[in-house]
Each structure stands twice: as C-alpha cells, then as structure tokens.
C-alpha cells in the first residue's frame, strides 16, 4: 500500500534521510522508531507530499507522490508532528473545513463525516470550543479527527501520543488499533512501549538510515530477556 524506495533528503550538506526503503501493507501498523533527529518526520513529510525527496520515490496505492501529489494526498490521513490546526476556529468549524477540502461537498454528508469523526475521537463535548483554548490532549484528538475523517486507506501519524498523559496515550493506541484493520498505518515514536503495545512491525532508523526492519518479536529476540529499551539503546547509542 505504501512503498518507499531509497528515499533521500538533504538539508544543506546534512543528509537527513539516507536511502530509506520499506513497504507497509493494509493491516500493518508500522512503528517508525528512532532517536530525535533520526529522520522520521522528514521521511513522513516526503510520503505525504509536503516536501520533495532529493532521490528515491514514495508511492501510495501504486501512485507516485511526485507524479500525482493530489491523488496521493486524498488517500492519506496525516497527523503532522504537534498536530497543527487553525487555532481561531472551533473544532467543528475546523473539521467541516477539512471535510469540504476532502471533497464532501453536500452539507448533509459533511455533517455526517464530521459527526462520526467527533464521536470516534471523543470530541463531542468540545465541538464548539475554539481550538487554541483546548488542552494538549484535546488538540491531539483534533489532529486525529482530521486525519481519520475521510477513512483513508493509509494513515501517517507523526508522534501521535507525544505530550499525552498515560490515560490519553492508551486511548489513542486503542483508536489506532481499531483504525488499522484494512489500513496501512505508519506511526513514529521514540517511546518503545508504544511499539510493543500496538505495532506489527518495527523499523528503526538512525541518522537517516534503516538499521532494523522486523517484527516486534524478532526485535525482542535480539537480546533475550532484555527490555526493548536496552536493545534500542544499543542500536542507536552512536547517535547520542
């Protein structure tokens, strides 16, 4: 569903992403792991068509992002890091705007989509509240609601649980799990328990390169008995 081949991105003379390749199939929840600055966000920005790669390609449903960006964007739900949203709008106004851009042109279907997204992400109590006045947890849910609204076949979630309290984290994980049936999901994180909790595959990147691409079980088997954290530390300690 999502196929990434030899992606490269340079910022100045710094190589942020260095030949990353992987495939995500429907039903997969890919945990995109790596220390801060490893190149996770940059890779996601290239998949979602926000920035252009310097080399390599990303395809979604066999459509190349570079060749048909709009077609790819309509198939992806994307939660950018720190869940940006138009702060002066209410939750409902914002989602209504997203629904309209997503092609729901009749106000009845739009209302239906927005209602469903609000319900799923438990945003009903704050639907008429201005986004900039929401707490971090609610803002994150707005980002989720926005990404799920059109039931996309692919979800790209950049640090979806960042800054949430443990209860909220759990809630978000449950939501991702329910959404993942028949969908290709990529989520980035630097928290390992997250991967253990929901991911079906792990990709670990470090300094822009894939160092590990395997199942959570295989990952754990690298150092039997040890916690995932310590394996992670071993593999990425060169970065610190």
């Amino acid at each position, binding site marked *: 569903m999502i196929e990434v081949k030899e992606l490269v991105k340079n910022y100045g003379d710094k190589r942020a992403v260095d030949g990353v390749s992987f495939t995500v199939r429907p039903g997969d929840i890919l945990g995109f792991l790596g220390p801060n600055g490893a190149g996770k966000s940059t890779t996601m920005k290239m998949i979602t068509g926000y920035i252009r790669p310097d080399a390599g390609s990303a395809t979604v449903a066999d459509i190349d992002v570079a060749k048909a960006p*709009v077609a790819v*964007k309509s198939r992806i739900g994307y939660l*950018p890091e720190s869940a940006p949203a138009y702060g002066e709008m209410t939750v409902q106004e914002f989602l209504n*705007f997203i629904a*309209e851009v997503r*092609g729901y042109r009749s106000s009845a279907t739009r209302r239906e989509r927005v209602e469903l997204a609000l319900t799923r992400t438990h945003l009903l109590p704050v639907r008429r509240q201005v986004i900039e006045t929401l707490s971090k947890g609610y803002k994150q849910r707005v980002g989720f609601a926005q990404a799920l609204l059109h039931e996309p076949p692919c979800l790209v979630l950049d640090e979806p649980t960042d800054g949430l309290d443990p209860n909220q984290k759990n809630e978000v994980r449950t939501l991702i799990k329910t959404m993942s049936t028949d969908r290709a999901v990529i989520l980035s994180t630097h928290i390992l328990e997250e991967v253990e909790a929901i991911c079906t595959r792990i990709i670990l990147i470090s300094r822009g390169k894939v160092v590990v691409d395997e199942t959570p079980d295989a990952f754990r088997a690298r150092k039997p008995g040890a916690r995932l954290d310590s394996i992670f530390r071993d593999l990425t300690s060169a970065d610190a």
Partner: protein
Amino acid sequence: MSQITPVFKREFLGYFRSPVAYVFLIVFLTASVGMAFFVGGFFKANQASLQSLFVFQPWLYLFLIPAAGMRLWSEERRGGTIELLFTLPLTTLDAVLGKFLAAWAFLILGLALTFPLAITVGWLGDPDWGVIAGGYLGSALMAGAYLALCALLSSLTKNQVIAFVLGVVVNLVLVFLGWSVFNGVLTGFLPVNVVDFIANLGFIPHFDAFAKGILDPRDFAYFGSVIALALTLNVVALER
C-alpha cells in the same frame, strides 16, 4: 480548481473570527474618510465628486494592505498549519488563489464601506456616476495589485513584522515610480520618454486614469499583470 472555494471560505470567514478584522475595517473607513474630509477638503472643494477620497488611496493602501496581507502565509508558516494545508488534496495554486481572493474580497468590503460618501455626494450635488464607478473599480484593482505583492512577501517569512515592512517597502517603490512629484524630479536629468516609461511601471498613473473615469484596457492589463506575476511567484516560492 474547485478546491479554491473551501480555502476561500475558511480564509474570508476567518477574518471575522478575530476582532482584528473589525479594527481593520474601522481604520480603513476612518482613514479614507478622514483624509477625504480633512486633507482632501471634501466639502471645501465644492465639487460633486469623490476625487478627494481617491487621491489619497495609493498612500493609504501603502500601510493598510501590508497590514491585511502580512498574515496570509506567515501565520501558516509560524503555526505549522502550512504542512496541514499542503498535505490536503489541493494544489499550491488552489491555496494561493483561495487565500488571495479571500483577502481581496475583504479589502473590497472595506472599500465598499466608504460608499455612503458617494451617496452623500449624490445627495448634495449631481456627480458623474461613471467617474465614481471608475474610481471604485480602479481602487479595487489597485488594492489587488498591492495585496498580491504582500501575499508573495508574506510567503517568504514566518515573521509577520518582516512581511509587513517588506510589503510597505515594495509597494512604496511602486507608488514612487508613478508619483508626479518624483517624476518631476526625474525630468530634470532624464529624457521625457524614459520618465514616462518609469512612471508607467508605478501604480498611480494607471489608477488616476480609472479615477478620471477612463477605462483603458492597458490599465486593466497593468494591474492584471502585477497580480498574475506576484501570484505566480507566490506559487513558486511556496513550492520551493
């Protein structure tokens, strides 16, 4: 192209979600009318026209339009919503046009609020309505040209203050090029046809024609070209 509508709606209604819009409209109105009354001698001139309103507009726009245009892209950059916007299924051109047209409509609304002045003139005397209509049309087109440049400049920075200052400076250059006083100085050491050429690059000669009720296709073409060129560069700057 149909994606322009949701962007336009969000942006235009967005103005009214903050008190800044109302403050802006009030400043627009009091400054326009105040200049006409106190500097332009609206009553003293004792003529049934809006000449005293229109003569100051190129100068007034110098500050008002960068104030309205500075936020167009800077705010999206600073808030990170630009990433959200450009991962939605729309083209850069859709977004540029939607935003520009919304801001332009907002400025035209400000301009329309001065219409009671025209009604007063009609009530006190017997004005040439064709000339008044020409003045309003020219003013709207000139506002579009100022705004397109400000939109472009605002896409270059996430700092609204810088966007404002750049907007004033660039527009000041274009006002000066066509300002009769400046052209008078130039004729001291340049051939007349060169000075004419320089003057024609500026806003004022084209606007003056409209304000006299002369609708010359070349003046339409001038403002149209400034708008088209600035918006094209705006797209290029955003896709960079």
